[in-house]
């Protein structure tokens, strides 16, 4: 095939990018080479629109062992233990083929983690669908949930937490973000940097097929009406093979024969070999005839661009081939020596004794395009038109029931019951709490993890929204008694070529950076997903933040279920009555204008740290952060979980009851304490300048405000649990 500008454009490259390739090579690339460039230079692999901004994020900290740039981030949790974790998107494939798209998303992120030598110990996910009324939503939801479960359950890794939302902006572009945490010994972490000359390059895992060719390019483009034609670009997952690959890799890693290892993820053999060569400042020569293939007559182009799953590339110490092969034979996996490291600093591909590609590595990596895209600062939110009289006539219980059954607030048990969340025998907090928690096997430590996003806040004011998501993650970890350590982010946005969408990206990233810097909650890994748009309409900006924290003594973990009658519940943090962009304003009053609640980073940090002190001193019996739906929604969830009621009272504020109960002011928590500890707790809070109100006293089974405003917890429970079950069974 003759390569020209048109062929390059069909590969998703821009005119000037093609020109640059020809200049760098000082010749026209052949088709295999063009394919390699298009795979390496697409948005998904090159981060060409985002790199400039991501550089500004805080990525360092006392406990950070490895920040962004490797397969996943690594943090130190003491005693030579480290946690490897990352979140990644699989949005585009999941919309085209929900089961396989979601399944391979989970498979891919687990590979990123065990590539580094860590055994995965927990999975999480953040999934976002279109309006429940949209004709595709139900099938997409079912397919994605089955896909996530199908892969994670078979691997035997518990899925311990997640987040699901519905919003019409995802009608044509659902989001599927998968996160994995792995456990590794600090001195047994593996990296992707090749080293040494003439070292064997080994291919292990599944055979290479024609599936997923150009998957990464597809994920770097917008959708249009021809989306069905893209099905062949979706990879097909085989969790059984991945389970074998996991065990085989960990077995090989227990020895000392691996120099570098890299999974074949997006852009398969192309990106894995180039990344290893680039990091090691070496060349790699590959004999494509040696690559195990599933189908006959595969061309070099197809072999290099296949995204067949469950494959790894390893640079091995010379002479260790036999020893390594034995392990992969035992697990019935392919093992092939396909090449060697060279000093050429080039990627050289041989096929049928001919050189079919010869590209300097730096042209693909360092010389890849980087754009300073034009972006527009977000407009200030419009003023809302809420009238006080309208609010005060509403009946609190009616509003509460509506909010509890709102798709974005209701119980997601239907979803997480389909995920094995107890395998490995260390899950001490299952989905449905503020964070999932797993013990560090055989120790007194536990790791908490949460994944959060707030697209509505980010859409209303990206800078504030970006800060808010980080703070929410911080709070979710604090609420279970974990000290927040670090985060991973999955940045889901529309097109970077659209100035408004790019502006949302830039400002959200700015907000994330500011909060993460202030809270000493660095970003150690992540992924950017652009082009989440159909026919030029982008999704609401949806950065998802995966937070990880440590509980030193797991016996001190806190859950959100109310524990004992007559205990007192306090609201930590000040309630100003911020209604704009709350679920109350948007769904009850149908008012979509106004700014999101403000973030006060000092209060976030101070409130959170003070709560950790109270937990450490043993004062807190249960805790929950206040988020969507305000105080009353949060306390109701605590009531439902603990099967208890509460007598509520509003403090004498200038705001109305409705505002007090439904406002979404930030930096707040609810904590349960005993009456006898009240004075001591109040002293600690006062001493630390933390604002608090008394919310009420726990009773048997009723949410009680006054004689006219009361309801049983059972009734609230059915409002909360029924929506999703009914929706999925109709």
């Amino acid at each position, binding site marked *: 095939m003759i390569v020209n500008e048109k062929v390059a454009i069909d590969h998703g490259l821009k005119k000037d990018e093609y020109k640059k390739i020809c200049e760098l090579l000082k010749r026209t690339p052949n088709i295999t080479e063009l394919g390699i460039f298009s795979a390496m230079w697409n948005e998904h692999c090159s981060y060409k629109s985002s790199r400039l901004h991501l550089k500004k994020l805080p990525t360092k900290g006392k406990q950070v062992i490895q920040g962004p740039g490797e397969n996943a981030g690594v943090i130190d949790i003491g005693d030579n233990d480290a946690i490897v974790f990352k979140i990644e998107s699989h949005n585009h494939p999941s919309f085209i083929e929900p089961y396989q798209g979601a399944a391979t998303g989970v498979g891919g992120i687990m590979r990123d983690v065990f590539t580094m030598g860590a055994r995965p110990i927990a999975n999480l996910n953040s999934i976002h669908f279109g309006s429940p009324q949209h004709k595709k939503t139900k099938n997409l939801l079912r397919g994605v949930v*089955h896909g996530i*479960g*199908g892969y994670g*359950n*078979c*691997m*035997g890794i518990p899925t311990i937490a997640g987040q699901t939302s519905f919003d019409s902006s995802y009608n044509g572009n659902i989001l599927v973000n998968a996160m994995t945490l792995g456990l590794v010994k600090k001195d047994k972490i593996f990296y992707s940097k090749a080293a040494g000359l003439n070292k064997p390059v080994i291919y292990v895992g599944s055979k290479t097929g024609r599936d997923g060719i150009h998957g990464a390019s597809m994920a770097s483009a917008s959708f249009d009406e021809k989306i069905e034609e893209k099905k062949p670009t979706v990879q097909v997952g*085989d*969790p*059984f*093979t991945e*389970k*074998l690959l996991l065990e085989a890799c960990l077995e090989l890693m227990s020895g000392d024969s691996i120099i570098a290892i890299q999974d074949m993820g997006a852009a398969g053999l192309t990106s894995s070999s180039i990344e290893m060569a680039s990091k090691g400042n070496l060349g790699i020569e590959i004999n494509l005839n040696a690559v195990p293939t599933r189908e006959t007559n595969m061309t070099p182009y197809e072999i290099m661009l296949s995204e067949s799953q469950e494959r790894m590339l390893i640079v091995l110490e010379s002479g260790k081939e036999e020893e390594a092969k034995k392990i992969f034979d035992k*697990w*019935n996996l392919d093992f092939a020596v396909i090449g060697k490291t060279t000093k050429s600093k080039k990627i050289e591909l041989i096929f049928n004794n001919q050189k079919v590609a010869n590209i300097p590595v730096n042209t693909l990596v360092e010389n890849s395009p980087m754009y300073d895209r034009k972006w527009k600062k977000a407009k200030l939110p419009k003023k809302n038109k809420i009238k006080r009289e309208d609010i005060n006539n509403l009946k609190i219980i009616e509003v509460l029931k509506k909010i509890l059954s709102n798709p974005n607030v209701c119980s997601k048990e239907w979803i*997480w*019951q*389909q*995920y*094995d*969340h*107890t*395998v*490995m*025998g260390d*899950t*001490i907090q*299952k989905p449905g709490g503020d964070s999932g928690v797993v*013990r560090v096997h055989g120790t007194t430590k536990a790791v908490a993890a949460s994944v959060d996003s707030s697209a509505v806040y980010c859409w209303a004011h990206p800078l504030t929204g970006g800060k808010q998501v980080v703070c929410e993650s911080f709070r979710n970890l604090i609420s279970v008694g974990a000290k927040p350590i670090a985060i991973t982010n999955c940045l889901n946005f529309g097109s970077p070529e659209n100035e408004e969408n790019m502006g949302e990206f830039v400002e959200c990233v700015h907000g994330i950076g500011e909060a993460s810097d202030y809270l000493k909650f660095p970003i150690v890994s992540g992924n950017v997903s652009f082009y989440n748009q159909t026919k030029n309409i982008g999704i609401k900006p949806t950065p998802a933040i995966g937070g990880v924290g440590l509980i030193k003594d*797991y*016996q001190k*973990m806190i859950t959100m279920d109310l524990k004992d009658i007559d205990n007192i519940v306090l609201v930590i943090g000040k309630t100003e009555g911020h209604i704009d962009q709350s679920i109350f304003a948007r769904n009850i009053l149908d008012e979509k204008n106004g700014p999101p609640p403000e973030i006060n980073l000092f209060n976030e940090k101070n409130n959170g740290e003070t709560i950790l002190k109270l937990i450490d001193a043993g004062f807190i019996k249960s805790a929950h952060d206040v988020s969507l739906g305000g105080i009353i929604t949060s306390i109701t969830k605590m009531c439902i979980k603990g099967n208890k009621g509460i007598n509520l009272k509003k403090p004498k504020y200038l705001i109305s009851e409705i505002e007090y109960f439904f406002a979404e002011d930030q930096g707040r928590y609810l904590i349960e304490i005993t009456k006898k500890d009240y004075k001591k707790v109040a002293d600690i809070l006062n001493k630390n300048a933390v604002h608090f109100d008394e919310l009420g006293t726990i009773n048997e089974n009723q949410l009680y405000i006054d004689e006219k405003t009361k309801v049983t917890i059972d009734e609230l429970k059915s409002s909360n649990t029924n929506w999703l079950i009914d929706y999925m069974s109709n």
Partner: protein
Amino acid sequence: MKSSVITFPGSNCDRDMDVALKKFGFRNKMVWHNDVELPKNDLVVLPGGFSYGDYLRCGSMASKSKIMKSVINFANSGGMVLGICNGFQILVETGLVPGVLLRNKYLEFICKNVFVKINNKKNTFFKNIDEDILELHIAHNEGNYFCTNDQLNEIQDNEQIAISYCSKDGKIEDQFNPNGSIKNIAGIFNKEKNVLGMMPHPERMIDQSLSGEDGSLFFKNLINNIK
């Protein structure tokens, strides 16, 4: 007491079972599916997971693996064999216990706590457990037990129904059946009661911090009764 846990390719509860057995005093060995001989044993456990990916029929490939010949011989000579979840599916495929396990009635994987009633305590597996009802944990996609009417009559006559899904207070009714199993069956013995296959995972319920502790009762009883 000595035990072995068999690891098949795709087993994923093998480590959990090893941890549980050791916690309650068994000297446990992990045995690879390709081995031919079983070590000297008082108990063999087929753990949960997705042996061979469950790609053909759950448990069917594993039931033909090399080690299973020894396991079947061991069972037939009166040795204690326990199959949990995928292990139960493998037992069914070997014919050591009757019946089959179909896809769950609502076609979805289910992971949650359930209550089961112990129907028969005249056997080593349940002999001295004081409680009649245990809270255990299930996590499976194919746990819908089915058998022919003749088989059902036979297993009832022989008191082979080990445990049944029930309410907290022991009612065996449809609404407490998580997967559509015939007669709410959660676990089955062979005729001689030395082989038990069950869907619930006692190994996930062995300490207070987990979903519950009733699994401990099961293992404590097991180590005390195995001779």
